[in-house]
């Protein structure tokens, strides 16, 4: 982790609301919904920095806005306002939310990788594993079939899937394996930013442990910076260097993961930590 370097990702004042909003939204919120105009503030003025080689954990209950944050970054959702800068896109000087569709596709495929909780969102279930990985490479302009196949084999092997299975479709794989194919795909173009959204949720404990272990290896081997969303503090504790706690669309606490686990400040974080122990 290099906190003194230029951040890989900088998100400023990200807001995502459903509804028009009203002047009284500020003090009339019940959880994240305005009592007056019924606008839902899924993300409310969120700012985040991710440093090179870092794993930043985002923890919170469902509805806290953490997945919305991830989807905004991966262009699956269009934020209402806010800016996001990537170190590797125009030297971090242009917000990725201001550019057009073709440019977004290039950013998404060259500089980012995403793993969804639900593999159906991240994979073409009926295409081969190799094609799933190649999709990213093609989208980034790759036109050598041999190189794609080579890269797919290498990544699958790194994720402990036999390269001989690369012509099989993920539909027939177990949940843990599907997540590992998603990880291979996410890494296809050596991105500087990896987005992991509840990747182990719903998996058996032993499978979870394996996937978490692989993520640790990925971090060491590929030097990628990771934004890791989970509702599970155990996962956060195992992987995250720093952690952000979200509640009702807002960040309520941030700090080194150990610090947050040992000395939580916010009442909600305290509850969360106690329930873990």
């Amino acid at each position, binding site marked *: 982790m290099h906190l003194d370097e230029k951040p890989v990702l900088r998100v400023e004042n990200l807001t995502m609301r459903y509804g028009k909003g009203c002047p009284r939204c500020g003090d009339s919120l019940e959880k994240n919904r305005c009592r007056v105009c019924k606008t839902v503030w899924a993300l409310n003025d969120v700012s985040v920095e991710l440093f090179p080689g870092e794993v930043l954990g985002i923890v919170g209950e469902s509805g806290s806005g953490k997945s919305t944050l991830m989807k905004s970054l991966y262009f699956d959702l269009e934020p209402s306002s806010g800016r996001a800068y990537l170190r590797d896109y125009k030297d971090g000087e242009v917000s990725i939310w201001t550019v057009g569709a073709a440019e977004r596709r290039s950013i998404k495929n060259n500089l980012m990788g995403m793993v969804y909780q639900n593999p159906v969102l991240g994979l073409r279930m009926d295409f081969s594993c190799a*094609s799933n990985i190649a*999709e990213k490479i093609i989208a980034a302009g790759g036109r*050598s*079939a041999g190189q794609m196949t080579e890269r797919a084999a290498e990544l699958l092997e790194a994720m402990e899937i036999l390269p001989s299975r690369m012509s099989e479709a993920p539909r027939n794989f177990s949940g843990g394996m599907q997540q590992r194919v998603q990880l291979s795909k996410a890494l296809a173009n050596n991105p500087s930013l990896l987005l992991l959204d509840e990747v182990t949720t719903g998996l058996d404990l032993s499978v979870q442990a394996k996937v978490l272990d692989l993520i640790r290896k990925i971090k060491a081997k590929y030097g990628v910076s990771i934004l890791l969303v989970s509702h599970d503090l155990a996962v956060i504790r195992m992987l995250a260097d720093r952690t952000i706690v979200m509640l009702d669309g807002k960040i309520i606490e941030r700090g080194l993961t150990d610090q947050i686990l040992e000395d939580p400040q916010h009442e909600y974080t305290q509850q969360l930590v106690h329930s873990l122990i």
Partner: protein
Amino acid sequence: MNKNYNFAFIDEGSKREIRRTILKAVAIPGYQVPFGSRELPIGRGWGTGGIQITLSLIGPDDVLKVIDQGSDESVNAVNIKKFVGLCTDVRTTVKTSEATIIQTRHRIPETPLRNDQILVLQVPIPEPLRIVEASEEKTKKMHAEKDYAPMWLLLYESLIKYGKITLGTEYPLMVEGRYIMNPSPIPKFDNPKLNDSECLYLFGAGREKKIYAIPPHTLAESLAFEDVPFEKESFKGKRCRLCGSEDTYLDEMFDSSTGEKMYQCSDTSYCQEVRGCI
């Protein structure tokens, strides 16, 4: 000629509109230009796009050739010739070299075309991306944004699954590095003829209401990976049983009395010319 109808059937206003569409198509090679396709007395899906192009271009001095599956005598070709004959008095021919306008379905003639000839292709499904995306609204966006990854992915998946690219006819081409286009259901064998050609190629889809073009000397490359060359249908070791040609697209046939398999040029007038019959 039936005097109850305008020369070449369609009214002059509509013809002009179609010609304007063609000009736009020539100006943006490979781009599908929408147009107000008119109803013809011939079925939609039976070449009405091609016929509308032919009818809007044809003048009294033109010489028309119509082929289907490479043959001048095929039922559909005959039918279209009959219809054009009914509403114009233009001369028709079977000789490729004599024609000024050639309307075709599923083939490009074997005889190389010249810069004073126009080849009009009938197109059932103009959208090359339809095999990867069913919605027109989405494919239109994909073209606009040059988002062609799903097409390449389809080709790659075919390589992974079958070791070969299994697309047959309607094999997509990239035109001038900008638009992916559908050459209509011609065999891959004919795809290279579209590249850097002497003649103007016009594509008409009546039911889908689109016209597009490959003007002469346009770059039209069949999609291929850097390390997997584009491959045509091969008739290696086979030759036409009539004219002996070894470099033409061949139809496979069975002799109904002996059950024997044999081959014959799909371009029947070319075959006849080689044999000196016409």
